[in-house]
C-alpha cells in the first residue's frame, strides 16, 4: 500500500506529536500519535483529526497508538467522538498498536465493539482496505 507522508505536527509544547500519512487510492488515512493523549492534548488532537475527516465521506482512519505512553479518559472520549463523527460520514475509525498496559484499560472499558483494534497499523490498514 503506497503512502505519501503529509504532515507532522507537535501539539501542546511537544506533549503529543501527530504524523499523518495519506493513502489516497484507498481513501484511508493513518494518524500516528506519539506522547500523551490527556486532558492537555485531547482538544488539539480532536481539532487536528477533524481537519482531516471533515467533508470526506467514507474515510477510513487508522489511529496508530504504538508511540503513545498514556491515554487519559479525555483521550478515550476523543476517540469515541471521532468515531461518531466519522460514522455520520459513513467513515470508520480503528485503533492500532496498543501497548499491553493500554490494552488492559481498553478491555476494562469494553471498547472493542465501538473502537476495533489491530496489532499494528499495517494490519489495520490492510483490514480497512479490504473493506
Amino acid at each position, binding site marked *: 500500500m503506497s503512502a505519501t507522508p503529509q504532515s507532522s505536527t507537535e501539539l501542546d509544547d511537544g506533549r503529543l506529536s501527530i504524523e499523518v500519512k495519506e493513502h489516497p487510492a484507498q481513501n484511508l488515512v493513518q494518524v500516528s500519535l506519539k506522547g500523551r493523549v*490527556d486532558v492537555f492534548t485531547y482538544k488539539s488532537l480532536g481539532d487536528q483529526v477533524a481537519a482531516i475527516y471533515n467533508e470526506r465521506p467514507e474515510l477510513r482512519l487508522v489511529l496508530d497508538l504504538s508511540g503513545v505512553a498514556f491515554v487519559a479518559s479525555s483521550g*478515550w472520549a476523543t476517540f469515541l467522538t471521532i468515531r461518531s463523527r466519522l460514522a455520520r460520514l459513513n467513515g470508520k475509525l480503528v485503533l492500532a498498536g496498543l501497548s499491553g498496559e493500554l490494552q488492559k484499560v481498553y478491555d476494562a472499558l469494553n471498547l472493542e465493539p465501538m473502537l476495533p483494534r489491530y496489532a499494528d497499523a499495517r494490519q489495520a490498514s490492510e483490514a480497512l482496505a479490504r473493506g
Partner: protein
Amino acid sequence: MRSVQARLRLEPLNGLDAAQIDQVHRLLQDSFAKAGHSTAAAYASASVVEELCANVLEHSNATWLSLDLDLHEGRIFVRIQDNGSAFDVCARIRQLSGGLAERSDGDRQLGLFMVRQLTTGLQCLQDGGINRVQFEVKPQHGRE
C-alpha cells in the same frame, strides 16, 4: 513485592496545571518501581488518579490537594483529599448503569465509567470542608 507508602501534597493549586499533573505521575511511577509492581498496575492506577486529580484541579476551586498511595502485599490503595467544592464522585458513579455501548452519553461519562471499572471499594467522604476519595485498584489491574 515491597510495601511502599508515598504522599504528595500540591499547594497552591493553579487550575489545570500540566506540571502538577506530571508530579502526580512521577510519584506513581517512582512508587510502583520501588514496590516492584507491574507497569500495567501503574498504568491503571495512573488512569484513575489522573482522572480524579484533574477534576479537582479543573473544577473544584481547591487550594490544595493531597494524594496518598499505599502499596502493600500486591494491593494498591489510593486516597485523594482536597478542600474544594464537593463533587460526589461516588454518587455520580452509582447513577451510571450498563456499559459504554448502551449509553447515549457514553463519551461524556467516560471518566466516571473508567473509575468504576478500574477500582473497588470506592468511598467518598466529606468532613470539615475536606473531600476525601479512597479506593483500591482492582486486583486484576494491580497484579500480573
